[in-house]
Each structure stands twice: as C-alpha cells, then as structure tokens.
C-alpha cells in the first residue's frame, strides 16, 4: 500500500514535469527564415544523367505521368522520370511533412496549397514563367495557383504550381432521353433548363442524377450563384480569400432557393443525400437521369459506357446571351523548395503544357483538358464524344475568361465542413436559403480568421 505522502510526491513530480514541458519552447519551426534567395534559373536540362522524381496520386495519375515521363525521356535522354504515388487522401494529409523532410520529390501533385506557401515549402515559378514565356499565355489558367505575400490570398502574387491539364464542370445529358423530352439544343437560360426538368418529370423520367452525399450538389449550386449574379467576380474573390469577400448576398439566396425548389419538385433524386460519386455516374449510364451535372473527369468513362450516347453543355446563364461559367481546377504540380533539380522540373512542366504528344496524352490518359498558349494545337477526340464536347467547351471558356475555381477549394475544410452538410440540409428542407448563405459565409470567415 502506498502512503498518502507517496501519492502526493508522485503528483508533485508529474506537475513539475508538465510545467517544464509547457514552458519548453513552442512547437514548430522558425518564423524568421526569410524567403529563399532567388537562384538564377536555366531552361537547359544539361547533359548529366538526372533522375526526376514525381510524386503523384494513385490511380489514373500513375499511367498518365509515366507516359508523360517517357515522352520527356525520349526528348532529353539524360533525364529519367521516376513516378511514385500515394493515394489522394494520404498525399493531401502528408504533403507538408514530405516537403519538409529530407527526401523530397522534384515535382509533387498539389491538390490544395494549404499552408505550403506560408511554410515556404514550394518554389516560386515566376522566374520560370518569365523565362519560358508562360506570362504571354492566357493568364486565367494560372490564377488559382498564384499566392499573395501573406501566404493566404490567391489569384494574385507569385505562381507556385502549374499543371498539364484542367478539370471542367458542366452538365452531361443522355441524348436519347433528351430527344424524348424535346430538347433540340442545350438550354439557353436557367429558366429554360427548369422547363426541361419539368418536362422530364412529366415524362416519368428522373430529371437530374447527382451525388449529394459527397458534394456533387454543390456544383449546380455554385453555377446557379454565378448565373443569378450574372458574373463570377464575387465567387472568384471569395475563392481567392480576397479581403472582405462575401457570398452572403441575394445571388446566393436566389441560387439556394432554386436548388431547394428543384429538390421539392422532384427534379433531384429522392435519396440525393445518399448518392455518392461512384453511384451517380453508374445510375446515369443506366438511364436513371436525363441530366448529370459533373466534370470532364467523367467523360472518358461515359464514352466507354456508350460512345456517342452522352452529350455535354455548359451550365446555362441567367439571361439569354449572358456569360457562361464553369468551375475548373488544374491537376497542379509544384516544385518543392528543397528539390535539387528545380530547373529540370520546370523544363518538364513547360514540356507537358506545350508538347503536342504530351497534350494529347493529357486528354486520352488524364481525362483532362490542356491549356497552355492560346495558339497551341487542340488535342483530338472522336466526333460526338463527351470528351470532345468538354475539350471544345474548355477552349471557349479559356478565351472568354469563364473559368472559375471551385468554391469547395476556398478553404481547406469549407467543402466537407460547410458546403456539403449545409447543401444536404438545404435539400432536406432543414435550413432556409437565407440561413444557408449566412452559415457558409460565417464558417468561411472562421476558417480564414484562424
């Protein structure tokens, strides 16, 4: 049996230990490390044997970047591209640790910039953009990976990532079912789209197939916000964390009202909140759904399921002839600050954006649309295929500046913690459009304030 004094002593020792620990230096790195001195950059890849290490997501990324690496090796035979991969969730959560570690890749797939810039883990690509002439290309393709000096505001400042291709959202339609409800051309306005949905409902068809479980329903919502506002500036500012940006406005309320009404009118599946991104395309392919709002990453799969059976149009504007918008995100690659082969990595980035064969691989293997210079050759895709439709829509938006980032990417957690649950509540009638707009905005401010 221990005596009371012994217990007291143990408690004292433990208390002292805790205090010592708490008084020890704060966790984390040093804040005084200034920006890395800019080194002179070179466009050459030299003649020494170099192994360029790429770290990408598991899945389709692997054959895609392996193919790009082989094309690059064919052009510069001293460079061997080695592709390593980690699954998306793992890489997203460990990327900062990897880049801060001692064994860094030369290029890394960056899904979200997060704190990587603030913690100085990526190299600024500005010197390369200048040397390679990327600054002469349409600049909207680089906006989302520019980060301001505070490390938070995007769309302005230095460039930190660039990619081979882009994702793009719009609305797929089942050509046979669309014909049955008398759709001869894509709807010119949101109101016209609504009429088509009503016709589909009357014809006993499921008007829209969509995945509300993991955020597919946020796409039409954002499109409705931009359509009812008539322009995308407010959303873009919001995405880029521009000081004072807000979406707690009439456009968002109107958009949320429309989406909620679509749900109440039975235009969305009854179990919308239970459908995930695997099930939605499978149901759509089966004919359960005339329309399927989603992104170009679905196009190769839809073409495979039924070549020529599925079409694609951009979400209609609020008023006829108004601007069309689509959400886009690049498959971005960044050069880690610690990479010893930054020049070669930059040469690879330039290659994948400009080389004809690489651009074709981006479409056929990556399921993405390449951007690059405005006069670059557009990759080919079979006539009438869903892929071809997404490629031409992207080219159209690239010149009309209709490419907007995803609201889901505005902060690291706005998607899972606010947009998805709030849209589910909205569709279930458990929140009002006004409360929806206010809550998403207040969560956003809390995220940025911390």
């Amino acid at each position, binding site marked *: 049996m221990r005596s009371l004094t012994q217990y007291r002593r143990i408690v004292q020792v433990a208390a002292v230990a805790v205090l010592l620990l708490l008084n020890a230096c704060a966790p984390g*790195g040093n804040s005084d490390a200034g920006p890395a001195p800019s080194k002179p950059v070179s466009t050459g890849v030299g003649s020494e044997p170099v192994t360029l290490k790429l770290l990408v997501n598991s899945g389709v990324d692997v054959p895609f970047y392996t193919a790009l690496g082989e094309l690059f090796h064919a052009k510069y035979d001293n460079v061997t591209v080695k592709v390593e991969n980690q699954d998306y969730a793992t890489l*997203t*959560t460990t990327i900062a640790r990897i880049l801060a570690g001692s064994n860094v890749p030369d290029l890394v797939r960056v899904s979200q910039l997060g704190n990587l810039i603030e913690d100085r883990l990526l190299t600024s690509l500005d010197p390369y953009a200048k040397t390679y002439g990327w600054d002469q290309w349409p600049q909207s393709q680089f906006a989302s990976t520019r980060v301001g000096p505070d490390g938070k505001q995007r769309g302005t400042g230095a460039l930190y990532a660039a990619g081979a291709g882009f994702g793009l959202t719009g609305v797929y339609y089942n050509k046979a079912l669309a014909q049955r409800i008398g759709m001869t051309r894509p709807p010119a306005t949101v109101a016209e789209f609504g009429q088509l949905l009503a016709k589909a409902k009357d014809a006993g068809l499921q008007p829209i197939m969509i995945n509300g479980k993991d955020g597919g329903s946020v796409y039409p919502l954002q499109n409705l916000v931009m359509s009812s506002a008539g322009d995308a500036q407010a959303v873009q500012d919001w995405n880029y964390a521009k000081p004072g940006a807000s979406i707690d406005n009439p456009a968002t309320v109107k958009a949320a009202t429309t989406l909620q009404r679509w749900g109440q009118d039975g235009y969305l599946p009854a179990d919308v909140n239970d459908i995930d991104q695997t*099930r939605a395309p499978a149901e759509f392919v089966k004919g359960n759904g005339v329309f399927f709002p989603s992104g170009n990453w679905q196009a190769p799969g839809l073409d495979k399921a039924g070549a020529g059976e599925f079409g694609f149009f951009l979400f209609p504007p609020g008023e006829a002839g108004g601007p069309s918008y689509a959400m886009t995100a690049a498959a971005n690659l960044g050069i880690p600050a610690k990479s010893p082969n930054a020049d070669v990595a930059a040469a690879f980035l330039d290659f994948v954006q400009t080389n004809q064969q690489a651009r074709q691989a981006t479409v056929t293997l990556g399921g993405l649309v390449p951007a690059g210079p405005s006069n670059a050759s557009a990759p080919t895709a079979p006539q009438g295929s869903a892929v071809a439709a997404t490629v031409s829509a992207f080219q159209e938006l690239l010149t009309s500046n209709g490419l907007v980032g995803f609201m889901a990417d505005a902060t690291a957690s706005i998607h899972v913690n606010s947009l998805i649950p709030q849209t589910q509540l909205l569709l279930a009638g458990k929140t009002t459009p006004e409360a929806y707009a206010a809550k998403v905005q207040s969560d956003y401010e809390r995220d940025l304030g911390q």
Partner: protein
Amino acid sequence: MRSISSPPVMRQASSMTGPSGAPAATQPAVPRPIPPRTRHWSALLWIAPAFGMYAVFVLYPMLQSVQYSFYDWDGIGPATPAGLDNWKAIFTQPELLHSVEHAFILIIFYTILPVGLGLIAASFIRELRPGAFSTTARVVLFVPQVLPLVAAGIAWTWMYSSDGLVNQVLRAVGLDRHARAWLGDFTFALPAVGVIGVWVMLGFCTVLLLAGIGKIDPALYEAARLDGAGRISEFFAVTLPGLRRELVVCTTFTMIAALASFDVVQIATQGGPGYQTMVPGVEIYRLTFLQQHVGQASALAVFLAALVLLIIWPIQRLGREK
C-alpha cells in the same frame, strides 16, 4: 481506432486469470526476506524497458498533445500561443459539441445492446452441447471482429443504400413504405451507423462472456437447480454475478470504441447527412489533417481522452472485488 482501444482488454484479461489461476495458498509460506532497498531498485530495473517504450510512445505524445492544445499551430510552421481559445471553442462551437453528443448516443449501440444481447447469446450457447452447431454459432458471431472495420463500413453502405439488401428485404415483406436511403436519412443515419457497431461488437462480447461462463464452477449451476431455480433465476443468481469481470471488460472496451469511433463513420457517412453522424474522431481527423489546426485538434483529443477516463473509471471500480 481499434489498436488504441485494445490495451485495456489485454490488461484486464491478464489480471483476470491472476487471482483465480494462482490462489494464495500455492505461494511459499515463508518468503525469503529481501532487504527493502534492493527490492525497490531491482524492480525499477525490471520495468525500465517497458516503461521506456511506454514513456516514449505513449506518455510523451500525450503530454505533447496537452501542450499543443494551448497553441495555434499548423504542424509545420511557427506556433503562436493561443491561451484557452482552443478549449473554449469545444464548448462554443455547436458542431464540436454535437459530435460529442453523438458519441454518447453511440454508446447505446456499441455497449448496451451488444453486452445485453451478448449475455443472452452466451447463455444460450452454453446450453448447447459442444459440437458443430455451437462452434458455427461462435464463428458466425465472431466473424465481424476479424473483418477490418473499413471493409465492414463499405459492405454496410451497400446494404443500406436505396436498392440495397435492407430495403430489398423490407420490400419483399411488403414494408415498402419503410424503405429509405438509411444513411442519407436525417432521422435514421445515426441509428443505422449504430447498428453496424452492434454487429461488430456483439461477437466480441459473446465470445468473451462465453469464456467467462466456462470458468463458473458447474457445481454452482447444479446447486441452483437443486434449489429449484429456473433458467431465469439461475441466470440472475449464478451467471450474472460470475461474469462480473468479463462484463467490466466488455463495457470498457465497447465504450471506448463508441466514444473514439472513427472508421465506420468516416467510411459510411463522413458525418452526414448535414451534421447528423459527426463524431469527435472524425472531427479530430479533419482538424489535424485537413484544416491543419493541430492545436484545436489536440484540445478536442485531450478532452475526449479525459471524457473516456471519466466514464471508464467508475466502471473499473465496479469491477473490483468487494
């Protein structure tokens, strides 16, 4: 999550066999006297390797979490002292507090139902003659324990979907009215997740309780029968008191699993629909890895750990011999 919650079981299991397996009478009547001082130091030597590992891999990280909870830190860059802000947020942000509430609701499904049903199942299996049927019954009940929870989560997600097995069965028996997308339903999502917990935990509880019943002296059952006890009173007079330690182990283990649940929710619902199934485990994961708010995540984790200890402690006391 499971790896975290397994140590208490092992600890309990070993202490369980201790007293009954080695009664005091077998010890030497007169122990050789050892000078107290030597014994003290040699004891330290013996526990040093285990304690070293425990200190480095458990105690130190735990203290670190406590320290982080007072900082605003992204895990890489400089940390700034945050005072009690992270702690205040737990009680002021409704989403964080609701997630703790849901964890308590899960106790019904992870603890109360499996332990109750496990007792019934174990009593029935005890009466079965050893043979193919009783072995099959044990295996069937225990199989969920062998499957990774992630696989279980995916399988259940399919069964719960609008065209899944659960709804097919409902429609087959004419209950079409009650068919629904269970995990997408605001009322039924949390109970549906809970049922997965019942399925996983029931086998563990049954097998452990069955082992406990096997240890009860058959003479007691015989005596009870001779005294004219029926099945019910036999259960309350012999089985239940004899299972005291096993019940404590079951309750402790399953309660920790309920309060620290993560995998099933992350796979099946991701906290949705709305915030209906959000639990602290998922919240901590998101705060750490998605939002990189290591400080806030640590505060919630320390709070959760304290909560678990607070709830487990009285149960452990109940389990001690009078």
